[in-house]
């Protein structure tokens, strides 16, 4: 297989967790909540899925891959939903500052992930010993024969089910936001909560549900990384700054899920570009790793210059809503 095709495949592999995170953040931001806790939620989702799989495999004599997978997905969704719930209660009900709450949640989530991930490694007998390979095999299972198609086989079909699920979620999210009544109402909440309220929309309910479901989507991104990318083990801080890339991707995609698809592949490609350019020194590698952020800044500059209203963030993003304060 030639280098280009491998690079593209790796770019997509790198892009998928970003796409999960970006979808979650888009849904959340459309309700007017700027959840900077998404990177933390991705850590929490990933480690919770790992804990579920580890406990299952450790306590059952002959673990079945599919059951392990199911358990780890459920654990991941529950834990990331719980994290998003904390954020929701603080920012929606208690109207705490969204930026501060989000950053705190990210710090908490990363610590949570590293603590439990590290603990699992010790339980498993030391660093590098932790493996939930059985469960991971279910995540990494590919459709037989299809990958054997020459040239495009690996590129199109060489991924586990989460990759395709992620694409389905993206299309579904786009349809939901722009083609359904509930999606319209949600966008109205994010643009002008007072207007939505006056039109009889339950603002707080929309914010809660969007933030929690968005958190769950982001959590799946963490699970994807742990299970499919690393094959069911934990490396402290292994997830790196991918959560922040996901948030940058939201801006890059101008709050449109479909843009986020190719954006995630682009970001994924830029993220690993340094591995494919021969003769780079360590310091040059770091510069290459920052390319996705650079691209995001360029996009920000361009959209700011164009001033197209549809490309702007939801108008009441980051603002708490309190009906009685409308004076």
């Amino acid at each position, binding site marked *: 297989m030639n280098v280009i095709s491998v690079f593209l495949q790796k770019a997509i592999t790198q892009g998928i967790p970003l796409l999960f995170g970006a979808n979650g953040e888009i849904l959340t931001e459309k309700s007017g909540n700027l959840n900077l806790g998404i990177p933390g939620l991705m850590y929490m989702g990933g480690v919770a899925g790992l804990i579920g799989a580890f406990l299952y495999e450790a306590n059952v004599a002959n673990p079945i891959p599919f059951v392990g997978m199911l358990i780890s997905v459920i654990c991941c969704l529950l834990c990331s939903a719980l994290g998003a719930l904390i954020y929701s209660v603080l920012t929606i009900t208690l109207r705490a500052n969204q930026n501060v709450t989000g950053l705190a949640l990210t710090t908490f989530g990363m610590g949570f992930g590293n603590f439990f991930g590290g603990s699992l490694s010790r339980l498993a007998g030391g660093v590098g010993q932790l493996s939930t390979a059985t469960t991971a095999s279910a995540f990494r299972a590919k459709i037989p024969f299809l990958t054997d198609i020459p040239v495009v086989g690996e590129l199109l079909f060489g991924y586990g089910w989460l990759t395709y699920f992620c694409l389905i979620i993206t299309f579904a999210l786009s349809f939901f936001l722009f*083609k359904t*009544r509930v999606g319209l109402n949600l966008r*109205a909440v994010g643009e002008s909560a007072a207007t939505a309220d006056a039109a009889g929309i339950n603002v707080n309910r929309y914010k809660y549900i969007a933030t929690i479901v968005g958190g769950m989507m982001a959590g799946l991104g963490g699970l994807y990384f742990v299970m499919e990318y690393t094959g069911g083990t934990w490396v402290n801080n292994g997830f790196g700054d991918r959560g922040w890339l996901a948030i940058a991707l939201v801006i890059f995609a101008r709050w449109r899920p479909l843009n986020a698809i190719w954006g995630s592949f682009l970001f994924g490609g830029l993220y690993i570009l340094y591995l494919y350019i021969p003769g780079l020194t360590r310091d040059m590698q770091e510069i290459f790793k920052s390319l996705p952020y650079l691209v995001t800044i360029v996009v920000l500059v361009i959209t700011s210059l164009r001033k197209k209203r549809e490309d702007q963030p939801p108008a009441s993003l980051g603002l708490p809503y309190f009906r009685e304060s409308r004076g």
Partner: protein
Amino acid sequence: MESNIMIEMRGITKHFGSVVANENVDLTVRRGEILSVLGENGSGKTSLMNMLAGIYFPDAGHIFVEGREVIIRSPKDAFDLGIGMIHQHFKLVDVLTAAENIILGLPGAMKLDMNQVKKDVQQLLDKYGFELNLDAKIYEMSVSQKQTVEIVKMLYRGAHILILDEPTAVLTPQETDKLFQVLRNMRAHGHSIIIITHKLNEVLSLSDRVSVLRKGAYVGTVNTCDATEMSLTEMMVGEKVVLDIERPDPVNPVMKLHVDDVTVYNREGREVLSHANFEAYTGEILGIAGIAGSGQKELLESIAGLQPHMTGKIHYRNRKGHIKELTEMSAQEIREIGIRLAFVPEDRLGMGLVASMGMTDNMMLRSYRKGHGLFARRKEPHDLAEHIKEELGVVTPSVDWPVGRMSGGNVQKVLVGREIASSPQVLMVAYPVRGLDINSSYQIYALLNEQKKKGSCVICVGEDLDVLLALCDRILVLADGRVSGVVDARTATKEEVGLLMTSEDKKEVQA
């Protein structure tokens, strides 16, 4: 005919703290009529209507809709009773289309069939003769188109009692005519329409009956055919109240400011102040009267150098008699030659004071440029704060107590006191006694008179005509952005000023 009555409000009372918004008001709306609710600023028109629309809840009184007593707790309750209110500030989502805004929050099939929605709405548009592009985004629309969206939104929700708060305030004459045509169509279809207004000619040309409020109280209702501009003005402004406010005669007045053909545009490019022309003298108080939003704010801001979108010139004569051109100076330079603006908007703390800082720090906002190097000087501002506290009787535990926690009257004294302390050549104050009790008000009047006696040129925007007539030497009246007249406050009557305030612009405006 009892069955003809759509809404009856009986004995409605609403207080906000110690401020009376409505006191024992009765109002009746009949089926298929246009009722005007007429009154000056602060007469309680909007708060009365807000109680019908579910924004406020009355302290006392009863509301009957079609003969049945109802309790309206939220805008949704009002919708359910078929009452829809269109506020002065539209509630629309900018980046959505007209059609999307109209169906916002309504139940229906999960999947949005915009074509079906548009067909339904279009039927409604045709029925009443609206012109509206349903695919246009709100941010692309003119104010009048946005208003149409709001009206259609209410009708689509089944409202048959429509309340419009100052609907023509933002419209051109042509747009106003179109709106009136639509309202008449709606009346023909049996809807009841209430419009809140202070424009007499509109009342006379559009409505069937007029209910008049004055200072929160119900004055009476007349059939429009029996009313004239004169009779309505009398009902609106009432008898002259005798106020005991000192008014010393101006001592050798000299022309201080000459506002020459000043026009100010708002963000949409509409004239909010057109071709203002007047002079102000030393040793006098020039009052500015007008319905809220007639250009008072823009006028003061253009003198203070805070208005970027203006044409025309403002001349200023300094102490040596030299004429200067204010329009060529920055706001900072204008401040330095002694022109001070104490603008007291509805939100007293919004412009001028920082709520979370104490008096001393607020004094420093005017003097932070003085001092050595990096360090600001605190002593003078502190002394000034103590002085103002002493002199004006500001009630506060200490000069470092956050001004946001003081009562309105005290905040006002701090603000006006600070501006006066710089012994300005021109002192401009807007609504200086809004929300103040009688004693504090008189203290503020005394402060203004003191400046006048010192030979300053005082410009005071006010809303209470009785006070303006008793305090000022001359009164300039603004109506819809134009100077509709300058009267001698010693001889003018309230009716005269009231008529000038509501006199309609006859000139053509390009839409």
